[in-house]
Every structure is written in C-alpha cells, then in structure tokens.
C-alpha cells in the first residue's frame, strides 16, 4: 500500500495539502478549532469537507474522462439541469422524492451519454463536443425554470445538502460512498485498466481488442451522473435550483482538482484519491482566503501565488532540482 502511494505520486498532493493546512494552522486563528453542538461538528475543517463535496463528486467522473485523454466541460451545465429538473419534478409537480432523484439522475446520464456519443461515435474533439452541452445545457436549464430560481420545500431533500450524519455534514457521506462506488467500479472491474490504457495509447488499446468507443461512452455517461449528483447536492444545500448560476465555473475546479491530484491532462494513469486531495487543496485555498478575510481585490493574487507554490511543491522537476535525488524504491 505504502509502495503504491509512493509510486503513484500521491505523496506530493498529500504533502501539498498538509503544508497548506499547516500554514493555515499558523496564520489563521483557530483553523483547526472544532466545536461540537447538538451532535454535530463545526469548524473550518468541516466546512472545507462540506464545501468541497460538489467538486469532489464532479472530479470523480472527470478523473475517468481525463484519464481517457478527454475532458468534460459540460459538468457545470449538467449540474444546473439536474437542479432544475429536480425542482420541477419534486418541487412543482410533487413527484415522490426518491423517484424524482432517480429520474433526474437518469436524465443526467443521458446528457453524459450524449457527450460520449459525440466523442466516440462521431469522433469530435472532447473539448468541442462537451462545449456544445456546456453552452446549450445551461440554456436548457434556464428554459426549464424560465430563468427563475425555483425554491424547494422538501425537508427530506434538504437533508442531502444540509443534514448531518455521524456528526459530519451528510455531503461527506455522499462523497465517501460515491468514491467507494467509483473505486470499485473502476478497480474491481477491468474498466480502470481500459481507461488508463486508452488514455496512454489509444491505437495500441484498440489493437489489443479494447472497445475504445464503449469505454469512452461509459466515462462520459458516468461523468454526467457525477455532475447530476453534484447538482442535486448544490440545489439541496440552498433549497433552490438556480439554473443561472448553479455549477458555473465548476468544470474548471473539477479539472483543476484532477490535475492537481496527479492525473495528466493527456490521459493515462489516474488516481481517484489524488483527485479527492486535489479538490480539498482547492477548497482549503479558497476557505483560507475567506477566513483570513483577504480583501476582495487582493484575493486572486494571493490565490495565484499560493496556488503556484502548491503546484511547484508537487512538481517532480522542482523537487528534483531542490531536494536532490531521492533514494530509489
């Protein structure tokens, strides 16, 4: 296990996260302060886990997509669609909540499949293929809600984004469960290997008999599903479906999380845990800027500098240059 962590380079994102947290420990008063109130934990660390949850869900799907050498820009728009559909079904039409959830997620899988079809069957570059849904998808979501914010009045739905389980926000449970599902799906079956193989050398994979198109179709559909779940989480968190803003720019965060987590944009080897750590790094950065109350106009520059330091910290070349060579194995 240790060897695997080392060889998969997980060590660097993990180190980056630890350094970032440690810096916060020094500079942000009470960063690790955790309070228990009516059986629930509160504190910055808990907030980070809670707020990172949607991006974590997205990045699970995005990891697989990127590992095949693709990218999915449409996840933000699919999040908006998911919230809007759920609001219409459950909020407006009074469909039974779990049925609504199921229908919404099925729809998101269809949206993802659409991307997958364009990429695989029609061989369109992933960035353009998913750009189409990125642009049109938000329009569809707005069309569904007529540009209004639809408010939910369903306490069981609200639990997903606001409730708590085992003292932690319920979203943490959702992420953990979904991480486990994704891990099992990709590693206990051969999908993970097929995905890595396709991303590493598509032609050789095809020659080896891997059905490249089917695998691609699957990862985009799965990414759609992840986006749908993230959309539901966000909608449930504020008890409303805001098709104008839900998931806006989340695709960027999700891609960032995956890359920070050590999966290369060009595809190949992927690490789900790495992406989770990546998402946590991004959220920690955002939260620390907010907690430090960095003036709004300076926030971006601070973010740029800290982010760069974090990226460099986990860059192999940088480490080699400064830390000298590590002893092998």
């Amino acid at each position, binding site marked *: 296990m240790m060897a695997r962590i080392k060889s998969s380079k997980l060590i660097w994102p993990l180190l980056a996260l630890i350094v970032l947290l440690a810096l916060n420990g020094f500079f942000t008063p009470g960063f690790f302060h955790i309070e228990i109130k009516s059986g629930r934990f509160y504190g910055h660390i808990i907030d980070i886990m809670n707020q990172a949850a949607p991006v974590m869900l997205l990045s699970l799907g995005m990891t697989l997509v990127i590992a095949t050498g693709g990218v999915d820009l449409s996840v933000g728009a699919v999040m908006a669609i998911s919230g809007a559909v759920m609001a219409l079904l459950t909020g407006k039409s009074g469909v039974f909540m779990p049925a609504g959830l199921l229908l919404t997620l099925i729809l998101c899988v269809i949206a993802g499949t659409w991307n997958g079809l364009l990429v695989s069957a029609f061989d369109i570059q992933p960035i353009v293929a998913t750009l189409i849904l990125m642009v049109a998808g938000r329009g569809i979501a707005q069309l569904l809600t007529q540009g209004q*914010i639809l408010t939910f009045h369903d306490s069981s739905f609200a639990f997903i984004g606001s409730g708590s389980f085992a003292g932690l926000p319920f979203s943490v449970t959702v992420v953990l469960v979904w991480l486990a599902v994704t891990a099992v799906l990709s590693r206990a079956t051969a999908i993970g290997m097929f995905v890595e193989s396709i991303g590493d050398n598509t032609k050789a994979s095809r020659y080896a008999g891997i059905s490249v198109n089917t695998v691609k179709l699957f990862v985009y559909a799965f990414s759609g599903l992840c986006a749908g779940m993230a959309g539901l989480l966000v909608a449930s968190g504020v008890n409303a479906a805001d098709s104008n803003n839900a998931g806006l720019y989340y695709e960027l965060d999700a891609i960032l999380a995956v890359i920070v987590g050590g999966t290369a944009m060009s595809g190949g080897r992927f690490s789900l845990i790495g992406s989770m750590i990546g998402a946590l790094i991004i959220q920690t950065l955002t939260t620390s800027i907010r907690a430090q109350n960095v003036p709004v106009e300076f926030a971006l520059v601070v973010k740029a500098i800290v982010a760069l330091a974090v990226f460099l910290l986990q860059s192999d070349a940088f480490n080699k240059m400064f830390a000298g060579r590590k002893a092998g194995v």
Partner: protein
Amino acid sequence: SKKEKAGGKLVVGFSQVGAESSWRTAETESIRSEAEKRGIELKFSDAQQKQENQIKAIRSFIAQGVKAIVLAPVVETGWEPVLMEAKRAKIPVILVDRGVNVSDDTLYSTLIASDFVAEGRMAAEWMVKKLNGKGNIVELQGTPGAAPAIDRKKGFEEIIKKYPDMKVVKSQTGDFTRTKGKEVMQTFLSSAKAENVKIDAVYAHNDDMALGAIQAIEEAGLKPGTDIVIVSIDGVKDAFLAMIDGKLNATVECNPLLGPMAFDAVKAALGGETLPKKTVVKDSVFDQTNAKQTLPDRKY
C-alpha cells in the same frame, strides 16, 4: 431596405446583460411584455455578461436599422465609440438600470435607473437603526468589479463610517449567488467562533446571497433574523417569504420593472422631445412589518 417592417411596426433593439439572476429576468420580462402591449417589435439580444457582445448587438441593431435602442449596460465605461455610431445613425439610445460614463452626454437620450449607492445607504441606515448604532457586521459582496457591488459597498460604508461602534469585521465576495453566499457565511461563522467574535449582522449585496447566508446560519444552529440581523438588496419574492418567516430582517427594493418607463422614453425621444438626462427609480425599504401585505403584489 431600412424601411419599417411588417405593417409599419416600430422596431426597437434591446441589449440586455444576460440572465444571471431572477432580478435580471424580471427586467427582461417587463420590457418584453411592455413592447408587446404597445405593438412594438422588439429585437432582443442577450450578451451573456459580456460587454463586447453588447457592443456587437448595438452594431447589429444599427445595421438592421432599428428606430431606437434600449441598453442595459454591463459596465459603465467603454460605450463612447459605439454610442457615437448610434448617434451618427440618428438612433436614440435609452439606458436602463445603470448609467454610462461618457464625456458627451448627448450620446444617449436618458437614463432610467436605480441608484446603487443610495441602496447601500438605505440598507445601512436601516441596520443602524435596528442595531442602535452598535455591532459587528459581515458583508457579502457581489462579483468583484461589478458596478452594483462597488456602489452598494460604497453607499453602505458611507453611513457605517459615521458610527464608530459599528464595524464591518469581514467582507468577502459571494458572487451574487446563494451557494457562494452560504459558503462564505459558513466560513464567517466558523471564524467568528474560533476568534470569539460575535457577528451581529449580515449585509448582503443581493437577496440571493442573504438567502444562502440564512441557510448557513440555520445549519449552525442559530436563528437568522433574531440572533443575527440580515439586510439585503433587490426585493425578490423569496426575500419577502423569508421576511414573513422572520429569517430576513429587511430588503431594499431595486425595481426591475422598467418596461413602461423605458418605452415612454422611447416614444418621447422619437417624438423629438428632450428628456431629463436621468430618471431615478424610487427605491424603498421593506421589512418584516410590511412584508406580508406587499407580497401579493410582487411580480418577481
């Protein structure tokens, strides 16, 4: 070819910022329905928050030979060249909801807008009264660089400065959205606990962020509206519902229903009348005392 089309209908171009909020959608709807009511053919263009798209739209309007242009500018600067073109083409331009910063004020006919700075002031004044001039405030700012964010912050600060016991202890951007408003508020609450500071009030640059903040406060086991005073701006329907529930304390209305006024101005401008350079839409504060009776009249 630039004759009026289909049955001599008047053609007017409307360049809208986008559809980023329900407030904005309400404004669009107001202008659309008013045009329909008056039998005016409206050329509508959604710029998706980009100034360049608005400039492109105005240029296309000119190319299409519209009779007048209604513009809701995304920023205040940068309009001089394109408005000059409109002027050369003798097309009057009516600005709605925000002014433009140009050296030659004959470039537009009139401006019909709310005063964002004044809204900030009104929110501050209400809060000062509620807190008796004493307390720690956290501010949820709009998108950095957006005109309402800048002005609503400015107006609020103007008043708060006068009260040495009132302090904005934290101020971060919530990008005008519920989700970000909630996230920022969560961080504020955690910080407050860790630093042992009491948050007395929240000032949000729009209702949506306030509604997000309310969620965060409730999840933290506090009572919004009671433990923490919350004031925001816009006056959307959900804000009124929140006030009725006692979770939001006050909202400053920023009226988006500018359609009738805008087309009155169009008519006047085409009729050759000289219009006042600025018509400020009267904004007012609503709070829990009058929320219930006002709710049925809310259109957005």
